[in-house]
């Protein structure tokens, strides 16, 4: 079992929480994990990414080689595009459709979607809308995790365990909210995968 995952977004969107839940699930499975994060200056509203590698075999590099990622999980559509050279030919892109526009030259959203759809395996999902509707806007990142979960080769229950243990100290209500968000994303992906 091997999954090389690129998580991307804009500083402050919460990609590291997604990584933490996947990491927790993989740790419970007894898998090897490497997860390179971005801290410091780039966190201030700039593009951020994390390379997350989980595998039953030992992992050498903290960085994912180009053309090797099994999945790009992005909280922002243009930020998904940035990492396509890392995606393997059979790899999946799971991306939020809500643009985060904090630069003047942000491209037309439609052209971003069109370029994303050129890839064979892509799920575009408005996680902000889903989160708002069923849980809370703050759970948008967990909706996205749910949408990515069917492609991560770890059982959905492992992620739910991960969510429980990570959000436990914030109270049962927060745990339930995130579980709901996770399931909504999961169902969306199952329905929309080609």
């Amino acid at each position, binding site marked *: 079992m091997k999954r090389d995952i690129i998580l991307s977004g*804009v*500083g402050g969107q919460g990609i590291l929480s997604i990584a933490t839940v996947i*990491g*927790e699930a993989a*740790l419970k499975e007894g898998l*090897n*994990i*490497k*997860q*390179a*994060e*971005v*801290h*410091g*200056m*780039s*966190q*201030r*509203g*700039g*593009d951020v990414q994390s*390379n997350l590698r989980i595998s039953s075999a030992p*992992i*050498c*590099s*903290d*960085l*994912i*080689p*180009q*053309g*090797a990622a099994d999945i790009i999980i992005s909280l922002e559509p*243009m*930020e998904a*595009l*940035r990492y*396509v*050279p*890392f*995606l393997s030919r059979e790899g999946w892109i799971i991306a939020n459709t809500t643009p985060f526009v*904090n*630069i*003047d*030259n*942000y*491209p037309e959203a439609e*052209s*971003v979607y069109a*370029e994303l759809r050129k890839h064979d395996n892509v799920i575009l999902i408005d996680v902000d809308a889903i989160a708002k509707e069923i849980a809370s806007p703050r759970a948008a990142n967990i909706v996205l995790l749910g949408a990515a979960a069917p492609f991560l080769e770890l059982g959905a229950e492992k992620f739910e365990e991960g969510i429980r243990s990570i959000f436990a100290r914030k109270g049962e209500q927060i745990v339930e909210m995130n579980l709901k968000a996770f399931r909504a994303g999961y169902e969306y992906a199952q329905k929309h995968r080609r």
Partner: protein
Amino acid sequence: MMKKELLLGDEALAWGAVNAGLSGVFAYPGTPSTEITEFIQMHPVARERGIHCRWSANEKTAMEAALGMSFVGKRALVCMKHVGMNVCADAFVNSAMTGANGGLVVVAADDPSMHSSQNEQDSRFYGKFAMIPTFEPSSQQETYEMIGAAFDFSEKHQIPVLMRITTRMAHSRAVVEVGEPRPQNELKYPEKPRQWILMPGNSRVRYKTLIEENKLFEQEAERSPFNRYCDGPDKSMGIIACGIAYNYIMENFPEGCPFPVLKLSQYPLPTALVRRMASECGSLLIAEEGQPVIEEMIRGVLDTPLPIKGRLSGELPRTGELTPDNVRGALGLPAREVAPASQIAQPRPPALCMGCGHRDMYTALNEVLHEHYKTAKVFSDIGCYTLGSLAPFHAIDTCVEMGASITMAKGAADGGQFPSVAVIGDSTFTHSGMTGLLDAVNEGSNITVVISDNLTTGMTGGQDSAGTGRLEQICAGLGVDPAHIRVVVPLPKNMEEIRRTIREEIEHKGVSVIIPRRECIQTAKRHNAKK
């Protein structure tokens, strides 16, 4: 009992140090080293044991305090980013002369590719320069084990040890098996007290010993478990892989590397192992993260008959981090087939947070300077407010190193520049700005110093700042006329007052200090959440 934890390299190092009987960590925040000290601050064992873990004013005070703790026999850790080594260099280099008593380990976290730094200097140079043994881990687990070994080494040989990590080690998580803590050392004074007094007579004696002992350190490196010679069938090339460069090489050979590989993680350079590889292989590839330190040592000035490949020869990139991809050419492997990069994805540079006080400070400063002082120059410094150089502000002319804003403004004023404005943060001011301000006061330099005070060390995530609540007293104590120490609150509604204050203080012939003070909105959010 061993337990498995998912830890950042920084955290593995911190935990390893705590378990190695640490008595104190001394540090100034700096990416990518900050999480080491933060982890110790949060660690229950650290609290139980009363391990010192308060932030120091700068890397030099941290290094000196750690040397003092080592003097009395306790184990001390110093952590900093690579450029912090420049700040503490005097103490660091001379600590090789005093030697250590209690284990003393200095961690320098280098930042190749400059993710959050102004240069990519390689701290291994400092190890060689000071003749201090240097350790460089290749994995998070090795980091955990190595820090304990480094403390043991330091005590065994009575010498400080430099541990060099890089961003990808510091800020990457992996599963680490951690053990139990050993007790702290008891108070115990140095057995050779003379070498702690670095007067010429003592130093001349000590220097010869240090040179002799370096032969011993090299022998230790020859048989270190962290340095491994793995033979391979294809002797056309031998690979010397330092620290995490080893991972990028091995990533490309999932079935095992066909070439002999010397994994190097402990210096001084084990020359016997290098000679063995040179005698058995047709060429050498030297893969090292950062600068070509080892490649230069092996290559020397005169060409050897043995082809040596690396960052100097161009087989590996001269600058930036190594990756699993950019080492492939040097290994004789074809580039991987990849999808072309998107043409429409635009760069997204970092920016000051919305609602940040630095924004209001720059807005006011820009308005005053654009309207009244077309010839103004703004000398800035290291921190979030360096982002004032980007759109929409374009407000600063320089950013060099910690504290340079005030002294460069002074030098420019000495050269006839007017207005000469310095913009520095509160934490950077107490790190290295205060002495420069004293120079300016002593000469009555015509400069305007803006200390943009957000009550924290913001860029690194909101650590305590050494002078919080006392900036006016510090400036007055250094001799700034209290009438020209002006505090404003950087908010849009105060814009007119801020502009007027800036204008008045620029017109004042002499040193003036303006302190726009409002809490960092990131730390304010955290404080509000706690309430």
